[in-house]
Structure formats: structure tokens, C-alpha cells
């Protein structure tokens, strides 16, 4: 039964890692602006390909 202490300690550790991740997300402002990131993800890295295109031409 002693293994249960190890398991619980481990599960708490995992949960704490997630709590830490949540803290990090809040502190870096990911909960401040729910709208813009959804727009930002639409941009591709097209600028780079554009550059090569113009260089070629």
C-alpha cells in the first residue's frame, strides 16, 4: 500500500505543473485578449516567400 504515497505525490506534482502552466499563461497575458490571437493565427509566413519571389523577378 505504500506505493499509494508515491502515486499521490506524483499526481500532485503533475497537477502542480499544470497549475504552473496556468499561472504562466495568465502572467504572459494570454487571458487578457481573447480576440486578437484568433486573427493572428490566420497569417502565414508568406512574407518570406514574397521576398524570394521579388528577388527572383
Amino acid at each position, binding site marked *: *500500500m505504500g506505493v*499509494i*504515497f508515491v502515486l*499521490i505525490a506524483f499526481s*500532485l506534482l503533475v*497537477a502542480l505543473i*499544470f*497549475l504552473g502552466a*496556468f*499561472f504562466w499563461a*495568465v*502572467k504572459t*497575458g494570454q*487571458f*487578457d*485578449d*481573447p*480576440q*486578437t490571437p484568433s*486573427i*493572428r493565427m*490566420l*497569417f502565414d509566413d*508568406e*512574407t518570406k516567400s*514574397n*521576398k524570394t519571389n*521579388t528577388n527572383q523577378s
Partner: protein
Amino acid sequence: MNIIQSIESHTCYHCGENCDKDALNTDGKHFCCEGCKTVYSILNDHNLCNYYKLDANPGQTIRTTGVERKRFEYLTDEDVRKKLIDFKHGNTVSVTFFIPGIHCTSCVWLLENLQKIEEGVLRGTVNFLKRTLNIVYDASVTDLRSIVELLTTIGYEPNLKLEQLGEKKISGMQRSLWLKLGVAGFCFGNIMLFSFPEYLRMDQSGSSEMFRYFFSGLNIALSLPVLLYSSVDYLKSAWAALSQKGINLDVPISIGIVALFGRSLYEILSGTGAGYLDSFTGFIFFLLIGKMVQKKTFDRLSFDRDYKSYLPISVIRVSDFGTERSIPVNKLNIGDQIIIRNQELVPSDSVLQSEEAQVDYSFITGESDPVNIIKGDQIFAGAKIIGGHAHMLVARKVEHSYLTQLWENEAFKDTSMENRVTSFADRISPHFTITVLSIALLALIVWWQIEPTRAFTIFTAVLIIACPCALALSTPFTLGATVNILSLNGLYLKSTDVVEELSKANAFVFDKTGTLTESEKNSVHYVGEPLSETELKLVASVSRKSIHPLSKNIFKSLAVSDLLNAEDYYEIPGKGAFAKFENTSICLGSRTFILEQTDIDDKDIPGLRKPGSVVHIAIGGEYRGFFELENKVRDGLTELLNSIDEGHEAYLLSGDNEQDAGKLSKLFPNWKVMLFNQSPLQKLNFIEDLKKEGKHVVMIGDGLNDAGALQASNFGIAISDDMSAFSPACDAIAESNSLNKLNSLVDFSRASFRIIISSFVISLIYNLTGLGFALTGHLSPLVAAILMPLSSVSIMAFTNITTRLKAKNMGLRIWA
């Protein structure tokens, strides 16, 4: 067909406006003006043409902006710069601009790629909802002025107003609330898990003692952050209230918190039980969710603007040597000579130095027709100059001007929430607290007689179970849902606290211009000889060129897209415009202007039948007729006025003249009072008088001239056509088309208070059930662990569902 197609394809590649036939042409793309072409070439040079791919014609028309280098000179002023920037660390400077022009994906993309155009810009971050752009730049490479000039050149002029020179507001409440909620949720979940053995009574096995100590110890460790971090706001607020000898809702909550935690700690340490730490953390978790719902605000709206948000941050001052330099407005001194250009606001009371000028006082008085003033006349701050430049001498400092004196009034002095009426939940909490404490004390005394060892257990159990969970949850959830539904119907409230004020309304006071009638004179009739299609085109071309507001409305009403280029064009601001075309000439303007410009006899021009704005037309020297412009009454106004119940009263307060009195009383005969030519201060006093009569006043207005009245009323609603546009300080901002629903919105807010009361009844049933367990001494941790979340969740569900059902029954929108 071909011709039409070719015309249609002549839209500006940058802004999508229709172009003239001789449109500017680069790389096979058409542009309506030099400005748009410049933006395109800047972007093209820096490989940023992706801008045009994300959205079609994403740009702003540049035609109207036009950058003058001198304009942003004041940004080199150290004082101004210090106040505008967020922080500075070495050479790294962070600054946040409010840019109303942000409207699409392309905008976000371009503004976040500014570093490709301007060297020294390190990073740009757009907040789309708030329409802000945060820029981090290297001060050794570039400066604030160059960045603002670049933004203005590419069509994203930052909104720099006087208010930015004031103190910066600190935000960050939301983040700490998220963190507190996260901690509470984390601890709640884990404690629940570790309490399971206790629920299932696993005592039988041999190693049970060790497990019990282990799990209890973990539970205490996990509940400490909840007590010391997540719940600390409630404890602080309760302490503050008690030290001022008052009781708010946080007092009974804190009693519950202390009782729950103290009892649990005692039970665990004395080995008499497992404690109620799961209920405790769950309680805090649900409370914080409620707070989150209540805190939901409308980021893009601003509810506390004063005159500083209207006035410009800088003005051009002419020095004694005749050099022009832009300086911050708050550095203006009496006697300074300043230049105000077309469409700009006069920052302080001044005396006109130019021969003549046209000013629009609609901001201050609500009067929409421009006024003509001559040299030596006084111009009040807040007036908008129409037409050409105007030179003037500053007569009073900004903070002493006529307009700004309104803010010296008492109505603006006590605006903090503390001085307002306390909320419903706060009002009943003293009764609640006293009742709970007396039941608990009674139980203590009674059980003391029967079985003294259990008396304290029962006492704390009563305190625990009577904790005002439901009371604390029903108000935020109901009001949160109410505010949400009101916003779906076009009424955006400042906070959930003001719903109660709206629900009590019994007197409605309306402003006229901009509220009952549209702010621009939109209703245009033509009276006279019919005009042919070509002649209409001529009229449209001239009115397009003219800067006068009336011509703009005429142009809009004609809806002609194919314009002609005049050979010769001149305009006398405020009088009229004259244009010469290939085979004819056209004259558009006032009676005197037509008489001056043409040989038309005075008798041929008809006199006016009624007051209003009129623009006469002469084509080829012949008088043709006139356009009559009137304030258009808002759509749905009749429904609104007629829906105002008999128990309520309607008042009209207008800064404008009596021109529309007849029309408005025909629309709605039951006006209690109609007052015209009211100054902002008179409006404010009228509201104060109504309040003294015991009325609960809702003021509906739009302009700065209503600011005092909006502030003085119990509930001020600012009407806005464009939600991101500025509106004066108020309790709510309404979309103009939601005005006709106003009465049902008030009814709905009243209904939401009935919902709160019925949810109290439900919570009372839970509390009484729990009290039954507690008083008989059967409140086991399992019962508490079931009862507490069950009551919370059912209150959340009940309030949300009934609020939405009620709204649906009242014919309001309930989904986005």
C-alpha cells in the same frame, strides 16, 4: 455594358472608394488619391503587400487626413512624451496607442509588421477588441514622433487626446482574479479527491490511521492557499466594512469562511472528524466564478470620458516671430495666438482673429447648423471649425473654459461607486447576518442545556450551512446574464451594479438632436424644376467637392457614383460653391451667394415657407430650385414613445431651437415638459429638480452638452451610432437602433430582480434543509459536500435559464 464594367473596376486598390475616371495608376492598380498611392508604395517597398491579400481594399481613405509635418511636433516635448509612454527601460520604450481605424485582419497584420517599415520598432502587438496597438521601440534609433507620423501616413492615426496626458489607469484586476480562480479550482479538485476515502468510510482496513493523517495533512496544506490567497478579498472587504460599523455581503461570507476553516482545522487536529475543507474550497471556487461573471466588462467601450477625451492633445501656436509650432494644449497661455484648421476643435475659449469663420457648436449646444462669426467674436471651447483655417487668441485657459466649467459642478464630484446607493444584496445582508447569528446562538444555548459537548459543534454547523452561498451567487449570475442579454439588444451597461438603477426608472428625459433626431440633417427634399440625369451628376460633383456639412448630405442623398471633374471651382466657406464644367456652370449655396454670383433676380428665388436649412441651385445662370434639409426623426421613435407606460413620464430637453417642436409633439402628444434652447447647465439643473421631486430619472442623450445631465441622472444612457466613437460619461451606451426597445429593456431589468428574489427562495429551501441537519447534529462532511455544490450549481443554472427565458418571452434577443 462594357463601359459600366470599366467604371466599376475603377475602385481604389487601397481603400475601395470609387475613383474618378482619370484615376492614378501604378502597377496596373488604381488609386483614388495621392495618399492611397503613397501608402501602397510604402508597403510595396517593404514587401508588405500581403496587407492587400488578407482583406480586399483594407485601407482607410487618405484623402481626408493628409499629414502635415508640423502636426506632431509636440511629441518631441519631453513632458508630453513621458506621459504618453507606458514605461522606459534604457533605450527600450513601450507605448500604447488607441487607433480607431483598426477594423480587419489586414490592419492587425500590418500593424504587427511595422518593424519592417520603421527601423527601431522592435515589436507591435494589437488588441483587436480594444483597438489598441502596443509598440516597443528602441529610442536610440527612432522616436515617438516618427512612429506616430508613420502610423498617420499609412492611415492608422492614433487617437491622441488631452486625457492621455492625465494619470494612466492601472488595469490588472482581471489577471489576479484569474489566478485566484485557478488556485481555488486546483485546490478544490484535489481536496475532493483526497476526501473520497473519508466519504467511503475506508476506516476498516488496517493502515487507515496512517492514511487519514496523510490525506488530512494534504487537505490542510491545499486549503491554506485558498484561505490566504483566493478568499483574501472577501475577508479584507468584510473587515473594512466592520471597522466602519457597517455590514456588507462579504461579512456573512467571511463568517462562513472562518467557521468552515476553523471547524475543519479543529476537527482534523483533534482527530474528531475529517473537516469540511472540500466544501470550503468549493465555496470559494464558486464565489470567484460569480465574481468573474460579474466583472465581465465591455473592453472596447469607455464609460467615463470627460471633456478631455474630446479636446485635442496639441494645437498650433504662432509665436511672436510668426513661426508655427505645435504645442500641448495644457501649456496654452492667455493671449497666445493659435491656428485651428477645418474640422478641428477649439481647445479653449478664444477670440477670433481671422475675418470670418464658420463654427459648429453641436458638441456644446446640440444645435446642428453652423454659425457664422466675425473678427472679434468669442468662440467657446468645444466648437468645431468648418471651412478654412481660423486664427484666434486664447482668452481663457483650457481648464477655465465655459465647457470645462460644467465639470466643476457637484454632480461630477461624488462619482465613486462607494457614494452611490448600495446594492440590493448589500442591503439585505445585515438582516441575513443577524438572523443567522441569532439562530446559531439560540442553537448554542439550547444544546448547551441538553448536551454541552456538542453545543459548539452545532453552533459552527449552523454558521457553515447558513453561509450565504446562494445569496452571493444569485446576484452576480442573474445580473451577469441580464447585462449580457441587454448587450445583445444593443444596450451596453457599465457594470452589473447599475442594473438596479435602470429597473427603478419612472421618468425618461430625452435630448433632441442626436437622440430623437439624427445628428446630421439626413432628410433631403428637392423642390423646383426637375433635374436631368446629367444635371444631377453636376450637382453631385460640386457637392462632393464642397466642405460644408449640408453639401455632404446632399451628395449622400443623390447617390451618384460617376463624378465629373470641374474645370474651375471655388468655394466661399459657409456661403456656397461655384463650379465650371465643359459646357455649363453650376452654383450651389445660400440665397445671397446665388444673388452675388449670378444675374438671377431676387424675386425668382422663392422665400422660405418654414424654418430649416435650404441650399439653392442655379445651373447655367438659371435658377432651378432648392434642396430642403431637415433633421430626420430616428427610426422606431414612435414605437418607443408610445410604449412608454402611463406610469412613466417623458420629458424633452433640447439645446436646439423650437424648429422641430411641432413635429415631435405630433409624434407623441404626452410630453410632460418640452424645453428648448437649454444650456448644458440648465439641463443638469432640470434633472436635479426632477430627482428632488422623488423621480427616478433615466436621461438619454448623446453629446457633450448632455454630459452634465447624464451624470446627474440616476441612469444616464448615451446614444451612439458608432460604438467605438466617443460618448460622454454615462452608465450605459446604447446603439441608436436599440432605442425603440428601451421600454422592454427597462421591464426586463425589473424582471431580473424578481428572478433574484425567487432564487433567494430556492436557496432558503437549501439552507433550511441544511439547517435541519445542522440543528439535529447530523451535518456530516458528506452531507455538506453534497449540499454545498448542489445548491451553488442549481442557483447558477436557475438564474441563467430563467433570465434567458424571461428575455425570450419579452421578445428580446438572447443569442448572439
